[in-house]
């Protein structure tokens, strides 16, 4: 397999915690294939200050692509930069996080370079037949073991499936990529981002997630009960699709096939029936606790501890005891 460029997870202003498991994947890839990897920090003019923090993970180079035109990195521009940096570094393969950013950017690069791409990579392993990967299909109802045709590929990596990178002694070179040498596409104008209050840990990285469905009734109850319990455990809050659809919770909290994938130490599902689409996003959690007043709810089939009860009674009592 060819050398790998790793597109650090970024919002343009700074790199994001999801970069850690991505580097874990890159170290694994390098160990299994003997190939090198480079890390690309892409964003606005300040993104370069982070280069130092990425020199200790065994990358051959840390490449900085900083430009005011990448402050809000839209997919067309980020893909153009990835493509040019792959040329500059000689990396023929590319990996990023399976996040809304990675999913947006990576397939564009795959098409431009005519590469096969694997989405949501959960595992990689070298075998007698070469490097094989595992990825979910049908909302996680099946796990496919796959191989790409050729030596080069694009990979979106499921953050919950890889641990953080190990530090190594040798420090990486830092190299600048001069964004002015390429023509950035101009067909997309970034207008705004409406982000929720960011007072809790990142949902995909949190070690405790407290999640709820439509029985939470309204946004105020959702925040008071689930937010209250999450805060007592230093956790993040998640939601079902039904809760988001009915306006009880914002979209960035949705866990499931089409939302975020989480695998915390502890997942508390309150008023969550447990559709296959929701289970797809959380069933790799270490311990699952379910609270539901329907004793036949499918969530109990995956829960380590289940309580059949009204969440409006139980959660305040739990908050009391966990104070």
């Amino acid at each position, binding site marked *: 397999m060819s050398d790998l460029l790793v597109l650090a997870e970024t919002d343009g202003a700074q790199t994001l915690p999801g970069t850690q498991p991505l580097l874990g994947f890159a170290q694994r890839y390098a160990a299994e294939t003997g190939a090198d990897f480079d890390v690309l920090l892409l964003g606005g003019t300040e993104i370069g200050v982070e280069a130092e923090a990425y020199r200790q993970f065994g990358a051959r180079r840390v490449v900085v692509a900083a430009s005011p035109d990448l402050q809000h990195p839209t*997919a*067309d521009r980020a893909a153009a930069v990835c493509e040019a940096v792959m040329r500059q570094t000689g990396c023929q393969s590319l990996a990023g996080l399976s996040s*809304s950013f990675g*999913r947006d950017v990576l*397939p*564009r690069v795959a*098409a431009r370079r005519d590469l*096969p*791409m*694997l*989405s949501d990579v959960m595992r990689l392993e070298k075998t007698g037949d070469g490097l094989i990967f595992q990825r*979910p*299909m049908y*909302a996680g*109802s*099946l*796990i*496919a*073991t*796959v*191989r*790409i*045709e*050729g030596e080069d590929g694009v990979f979106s990596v499921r953050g919950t499936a890889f641990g953080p990178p190990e530090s190594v002694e040798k420090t990486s070179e830092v190299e600048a990529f001069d964004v002015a040498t390429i023509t950035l*596409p101009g*067909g*997309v*104008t970034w*207008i705004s*981002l*409406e982000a*929720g209050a960011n007072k809790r840990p990142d949902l*995909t990285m949190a*070690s*405790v997630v407290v999640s709820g469905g439509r029985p939470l009734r309204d946004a105020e109850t959702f925040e008071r009960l689930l937010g209250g319990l999450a805060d007592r*455990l230093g*956790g993040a809050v998640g939601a079902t699709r039904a809760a*988001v*659809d009915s306006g009880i919770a*914002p*979209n*960035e909290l949705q866990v499931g*096939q*089409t939302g*975020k994938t989480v695998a915390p130490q*502890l997942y*508390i599902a309150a008023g969550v029936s447990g559709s296959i*689409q929701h289970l797809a996003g959380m069933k790799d959690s*270490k311990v*699952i*606790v379910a609270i539901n007043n329907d004793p036949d709810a499918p969530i109990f089939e*995956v829960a*380590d*501890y289940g*309580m*059949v009860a009204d969440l409006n009674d139980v959660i305040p*009592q*739990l908050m009391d*005891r*966990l104070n």
Partner: protein
Amino acid sequence: MKILVAIKRVPDPYSKIRLDADGQIDESDFTWVINPFDEIALEEAVRLRERGHTVEIVAVGIGDAEWEAQLKTALAMGADRAILVLDDEPADPGSVSELLAAVFRREQPDLVLMGKQATDDDYNQTAQRLAALLELSQATFASALEVSGDEKRATVTREVDAGRETLEVSLPAIITADLRLNEPRYVALPAILKARSKPLERLPASELGARKAAGVAIIKMEAPPRRSAGRRVQDVDELAGLIRAAAGRS
């Protein structure tokens, strides 16, 4: 304006997915439907018409003759005509996007709408690949879409990990539908009957001259390890203790 809507045929997402003795997906009990996200994309095209845009909607599918059923449903939902690119090859996003690019060049639409991912292989790649092949702008994961009066630009609200992002894209562009863009309409019998007279073109994939992209080989599929149900807890004090232990707080 002309809108191309890409349609994929998938098993009903609530179907039970099982493997047969040979490790292949057992399709015997499947009900086949339009990929739910593509259905939302099509609904949005119809709503653009209802909001006053003069719209021609062309639904396109790539698959075998069985796909006609889903394209007929698309016609009943409001597409004006449909194209079935006849192709028996397994659909991977690389080759499908090459075929869609060829259809795009033939049709020259102002906008392509499609689902953000298909609920069978969950790849989430085809639209982005198509945009790159055509060197067009893209806006994925749309939860709101507005086309300007002159039909040269679209404003798209996207559901992203951080919240809701708004972009403006110049047309033509590729836009993918997320869950909350709309709720597709129920198709009534008169619409189904009326759709029978709408054109459905069958086009052999070989006539499009598209390249075959480098692909992915599936070695095997298997069911994930099953979690077994744990135990029921009756007492809140006990549950609090279990939660405290699992969270690493003693």
